[in-house]
């Protein structure tokens, strides 16, 4: 008989006693096999779409790929040499870097400001949070098509608003200087994902810290820098890394506003790395060169993330780390 102490409560099949873990063995064979079966979709996907693709991509980056005949001809490092000599790669990289340096700090500050404000208000917080989150739900193509007119230098709402306070706004989408700030503006409109992460972190800061600090005579500014910032440094760290990676891959808005058709008025200034990569891959079908570009992006992001982690570890306070 099987174990009598436990009454089967339903459609028990009563063969479980054979599957108990063996005493001497570290892993139960059946359980391990079942585990592998459960994760097998991911293993297949990883082998084909991740590992396989990466190797394939690496091979292509050292070759010339003929799409018509499907022939891969090895060309050594010529794609990478071409990469280093290509002025458009340098330009798109510089544009992207400039954009990231502009966008990431602004996004962080704006999102943090909104989160702090939302955290302060008692009633109505849910309403404002919802309103602030709506742009995040707006598809990127719609965002681009809306801002295409809002950013119009003559009649757009943004310049009309600036005129109202006595500033003559720039020709956002035409003047090469203002191409990247235009896209930053659009990004700031959809900053609520970052804001929500900050908001969650702010909610976890123990309130008594503030009470004691105010008893000690610390004002709001001092409290912000001495309590709030250190306590949410984990979320800050996360947001900076995620936003940097996203900034280096900015595509949709840049493509929709500038590269959709042939009338691009600022081809130099609006050439972002991901856009140029896309052009080389799926407009020129220059797969070898584009694959090399992808690997360069990968290396750059790895280095940047590594630096951020190294720097971040000195400043980030993890709850329960020391005790």
């Amino acid at each position, binding site marked *: 008989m099987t174990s009598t102490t436990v009454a089967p*409560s339903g459609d*028990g099949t009563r*063969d*479980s006693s054979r599957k108990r873990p063996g005493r001497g063995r570290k*892993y*139960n064979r059946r359980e*391990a*096999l079942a585990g*592998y079966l*459960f*994760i097998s*979709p*991911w293993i297949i*996907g990883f082998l084909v779409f991740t590992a396989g*693709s*990466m190797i*394939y991509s690496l091979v292509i980056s050292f070759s010339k790929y003929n799409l018509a005949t499907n022939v891969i001809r090895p060309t050594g490092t010529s794609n990478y040499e071409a990469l280093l000599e290509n002025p458009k790669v340098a330009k798109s990289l510089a544009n992207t870097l400039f954009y990231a340096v502009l966008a990431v700090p602004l996004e962080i500050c704006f999102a943090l400001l909104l989160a702090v*404000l939302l955290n302060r208000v008692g009633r*109505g917080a849910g309403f*404002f949070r919802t*309103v602030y*989150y709506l742009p995040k*739900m*707006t*598809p*990127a*193509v*719609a965002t681009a*098509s*809306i801002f295409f007119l809002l950013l119009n230098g003559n*009649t757009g*709402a943004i310049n*009309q608003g600036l005129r109202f306070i006595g500033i003559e706004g720039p020709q956002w989408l035409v003047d090469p200087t203002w191409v990247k700030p235009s896209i930053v503006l659009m990004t700031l*409109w959809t900053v609520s*994902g970052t804001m*929500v*992460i900050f908001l969650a972190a702010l909610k976890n800061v123990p309130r*008594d810290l503030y*009470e004691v600090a105010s008893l000690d005579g610390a004002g709001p500014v001092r409290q912000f820098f001495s309590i709030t910032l*250190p306590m949410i440094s984990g979320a800050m760290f*996360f947001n900076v890394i*995620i936003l940097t990676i996203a900034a*280096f*891959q900015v595509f*949709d808005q840049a*493509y929709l506003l500038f590269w*959709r*058709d042939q009338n691009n008025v600022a081809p130099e200034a609006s050439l972002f790395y991901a856009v140029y*990569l*896309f052009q080389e*891959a799926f407009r020129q079908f220059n797969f070898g060169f584009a694959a090399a*570009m*992808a690997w360069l*992006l*990968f290396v750059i*992001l790895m280095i940047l993330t590594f630096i951020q982690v190294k720097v971040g570890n000195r400043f*980030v*306070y993890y*709850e329960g780390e*020391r005790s």
Partner: protein
Amino acid sequence: MTTIGPSTAPTAAPVLAQAVDAAPPGGQRDPGRPPTRWTIGRVLLTLLLVGFAALFLYPLVWLVAASLKPASQVFDNSLIPETWRWDNYVQVWSELPLLHWVFNSVSISLLAATTVAISSSMVAFGFAYFRFPGRNILFGLVLGTMMLPGAVTMIPMYLIWKEAGFLGTWVPLFGANLFGSAFYIFLQRQFYLSLPRELFEAARIDGTNYWQLFWKIAMPLSIPSFVIVFLFEFQAAWNNFQGALIYLNGESMEDFTAPLGIAYAMTKYSPTAGGEGDYQYVMVASLLVTLPMLLLFSFGQRYFIEGVATQGRKG
């Protein structure tokens, strides 16, 4: 020492907590601070919040307004059209295959969200419940793939789908979802780990097999995180512009997804050097791709915001 930096904060915390306990009861605190100052601060705070709310809402309200204007007024910034052109909607409907686009987008998004939610749950359960050699290394690999920029695998993926004969079909837009997605696996695994293990052990003793354990017990319990994954992926698939650009761009206009359709409409109706264009039609189409998302958000708001807040995702 003046710095209460990150390094001193944790050690200070217990001391501070004691100080709070020792502090006199609430009535005696803040005796000198007049209540009016707090009120002014509150008014300012509310004004700021309302101001930002107006900034965030303006483009959306303006989108609705612009979709109802005649071509000559699209460039106005008024939120109320001088003349209401309801027939813009009829006009766009006859000029663009909107119904096709929405149908394509809804179908692809449903397929993508369903497949990734099921496959990711399954893999996540595998990682959360079972003990097998190499589990931690494999899960480390899962997390590692989150760091990989999409550009690296973009070209090989294109060639794989091309070789398999799926160019121009929906398969490339959701096919990889059948194998789970790192972020969702991570999210679902966190959820499964939070369930008491005794629950599963009891079911095992009752004779439940591993598949039933997942399908009949773990899955129903994980509905909240399942919904988060589903909604996130639905939104991501609905938004997927680059994928459609790569895989569906060469097809006929009826085969476009909504984002690709909007891009097409932007080109077709943009004011060029010659005339003023018919940009109100783009606004109608843009509204059409935005509304389902706003509706979805109104139903699943809690899931979206909590999903972002608990796991952190830039989206």
